[in-house]
């Protein structure tokens, strides 16, 4: 029955066994269609809307959004589906980490950014930068609409029709293939409540940035007329990771449309907070309020200076940024900003993971807290090792936000 087997010297039992194994293996096969996006652009979206709810404004727009890219409408003009849906977009928190951590770190559906918790095709490693927090979207012209939705766990298309009648923002964007974009839904004018989007084409992956330095740029995307408004109209739930009412004024009331940015770099090993001599109130840039221009701001470098000790390459430095209106002098670090300085002075600190630990020196004058611009983690044989990153610091009304982008680095060796 098995002549060829016999001639080849294979035992029929073995032949049969092979056949059975083969059948078993083959029956377990599944065909997986890998989804790809042809000529993708890379998109990351933030909801910057933050409203104050009082009895007078209770029926005004809520701040949770749904983003629809290329929506499909039914006969009544209600959206029924969309090519890409970013649902449950809540107001962004202070920190946008360099890796897509949101998806594994919560039990609710509320998404602090897009893609965030959405299951999308993530961006690749582009010129050494990890774009896994960006979604791949088809390039070209696209219609993008933001709808205000109630903050509940009901998916957008299952909500009552009244929530789907009028988009808050409805616009057309042109995305170029291979480019990296961050899209902001924001309030353009605090008095007229005009809303809009700001699409920024990022440049960090095209620049010759050294991996031994920390880079940072600044944006002030505040609404027109925010800082001038009476403080009773301003929202109080700022994004600061540490709610410290004593320093609420440090940024919560907004800053003027024209500010100078200074930076001090501190060493966390020193008992009294002293900044590095060459990085003490160092002038970085002149920051203008702008929520119209899509241009990326220039980057400034700060030191990383890792000190190689036994199995570690940790940088002990952390940063503190100061915003001063032109003509407003540094007097004392202990001075509060906000109303007392007539919105001419504000500061914030980037230390540790931004959760409010105090440095050994007990630098109490924190202001709003953000994570350190330097990412420190176990990599290769070093535990820990510090890495330089590329950062954007965005001021939106009374809030400050940090977006960190990191390079790919070696996995830990144990």
């Amino acid at each position, binding site marked *: *029955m098995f002549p060829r087997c016999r001639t080849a010297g294979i035992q029929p039992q073995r032949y*049969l066994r092979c056949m*059975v194994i083969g*059948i078993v293996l083959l029956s377990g096969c599944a065909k997986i269609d890998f989804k790809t996006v042809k000529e993708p652009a890379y998109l990351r979206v933030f909801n910057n809307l933050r409203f104050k709810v009082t*009895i007078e404004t*209770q029926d005004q727009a*809520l701040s949770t959004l749904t983003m629809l890219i290329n929506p499909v409408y039914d006969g009544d003009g209600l959206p029924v589906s969309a090519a890409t849906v970013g649902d449950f977009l809540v107001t962004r928190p202070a920190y946008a980490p360099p890796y897509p951590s949101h998806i594994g770190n919560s039990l609710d559906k509320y998404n602090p950014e897009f893609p965030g918790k959405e299951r999308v095709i993530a961006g690749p490693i582009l010129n050494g930068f990890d774009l896994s927090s960006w979604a791949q979207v088809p390039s070209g012209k696209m219609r993008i609409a933001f709808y205000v939705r*109630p*903050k509940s766990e009901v998916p957008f298309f299952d909500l009552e029709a009244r929530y789907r009648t009028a988009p808050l923002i409805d616009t057309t964007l042109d995305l170029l293939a291979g480019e990296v974009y961050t899209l902001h839904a924001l309030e353009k004018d605090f008095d007229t409540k005009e809303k809009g989007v700001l699409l920024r084409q990022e440049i960090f992956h095209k620049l010759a940035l050294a991996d031994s330095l920390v880079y940072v740029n600044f944006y002030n995307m505040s609404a027109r007329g925010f800082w001038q408004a009476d*403080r009773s109209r301003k929202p109080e739930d700022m994004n600061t990771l540490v709610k410290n009412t004593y320093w609420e004024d440090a940024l919560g009331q907004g800053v003027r449309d024209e500010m100078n940015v200074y930076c001090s770099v501190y060493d966390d090993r020193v008992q009294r907070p002293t900044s590095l001599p060459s990085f003490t109130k160092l002038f970085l840039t002149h920051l203008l309020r702008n929520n119209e221009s899509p241009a990326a701001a220039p980057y400034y470098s700060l030191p990383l200076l890792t000190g190689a000790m036994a199995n570690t390459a940790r940088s002990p430095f952390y940063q503190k940024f100061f915003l001063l209106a032109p003509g407003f002098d540094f007097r004392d670090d202990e001075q509060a900003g906000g109303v007392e300085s007539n919105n001419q002075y504000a500061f914030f600190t980037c230390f540790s993971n931004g959760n409010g630990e105090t440095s050994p020196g007990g630098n109490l004058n924190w202001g709003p807290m953000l994570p350190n611009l330097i990412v420190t983690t176990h990599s290769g044989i070093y535990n820990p090792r510090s890495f330089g990153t590329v950062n954007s610091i965005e001021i939106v009304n009374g809030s400050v936000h940090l977006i960190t982008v990191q390079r790919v680095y070696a996995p830990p060796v144990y």
Partner: protein
Amino acid sequence: MSMKKMTIYGCFLVVTMLSCNKPDIRLDNPNDALRPAAEFARNNYAFSLLSAAIVKAGLEEELNKPGALTMWAPTDAAFNRIGIRSPADFDNYDTESLRQLVLNHVQPGKLMVESIPLGSVNNRYDNAAGNNSWLARIDITAVPTNPNRTIRAYVNGAQVGIDNRYNIPLSNGIFHEISEVLKYEDASVREWLEKKGHYKVLIAGLKHFGYWDMLTDDKQWTIMAPADSIFERQGMTVESVTELDTAVYGKRLFGAYIFPVRFFVSDLGLFKLKLFVGSGATVELGVYTPIMGDESFSNGITPIIGRFNGPGFFVNKTFPQESWDMVYTYAVSYPDYRSNWSRSNHLTRNGCIHHLDGVVLLPYQAHD
């Protein structure tokens, strides 16, 4: 092993494996033994009065029908607070009004508490009686960064699920306990006050100071209503109030009891208005509005959070600049909302009426 046997085994194995099917085993099978709404209430001691109301209103069959409904179920304690202590007390109601009362607590469609928009009030839903239910879900955690958040849901100002009895599945919908019997009357605020009969001094004052005609049907109002006995304790009667000279006494004497916007007491958990007074001092307020016709004075309520005794109602000079000037303030406190909110949140066609335990201004305090 012979070749033939081998082949037979081989074929047998192939055939056996081919005939394998993969049944979709569900370990979390839905409970088939769920009860419908009226049946659930009947079998639960905490809802015996609700069940009695359902039976007396002849709605048992309707609420047991298959379908999807949401039942906002007042406990027996909630009925007790509006004076209903035994099923016999429902005999005072005619069947039709009892039917309306029960249907006000039934909402078509299955609504989980998590589906109520968070951080907002006045979310309109229709109930089975054809009226509106106003749903709210509020994060009342005092510190926003506190990971142990306290989120409360309310329907027409009544708290949902005080003892975590909410989202209870029924065979025909979902069941939530609420802390109060929903109070809705198809009347205007003026009709409501007149009908009750014990707000005569308030009505006389509102009429005398020109507010009564302002309470029209096309707007929504909130009235803080002290009963006659409370006014009389302060020496204010219908006669004494109507004799006041309106040229001498400020309109705030009675304007203080009106807010030109409708709110349930629970809504104050959401509204946080910070009033900045003096050098850096702040006062947290829930609602604060200038008094109509006497705008240099404002009426307001401090929020629920942080106040064990509930919101405090006050009148003061509008936006005091110098210091927190609680002039003309009487410590008027609400009863603890857990034990007795039954005297607030009376919903009418054009507003809400809350009972007030004190008189906020005496005539001499409104003497200009």
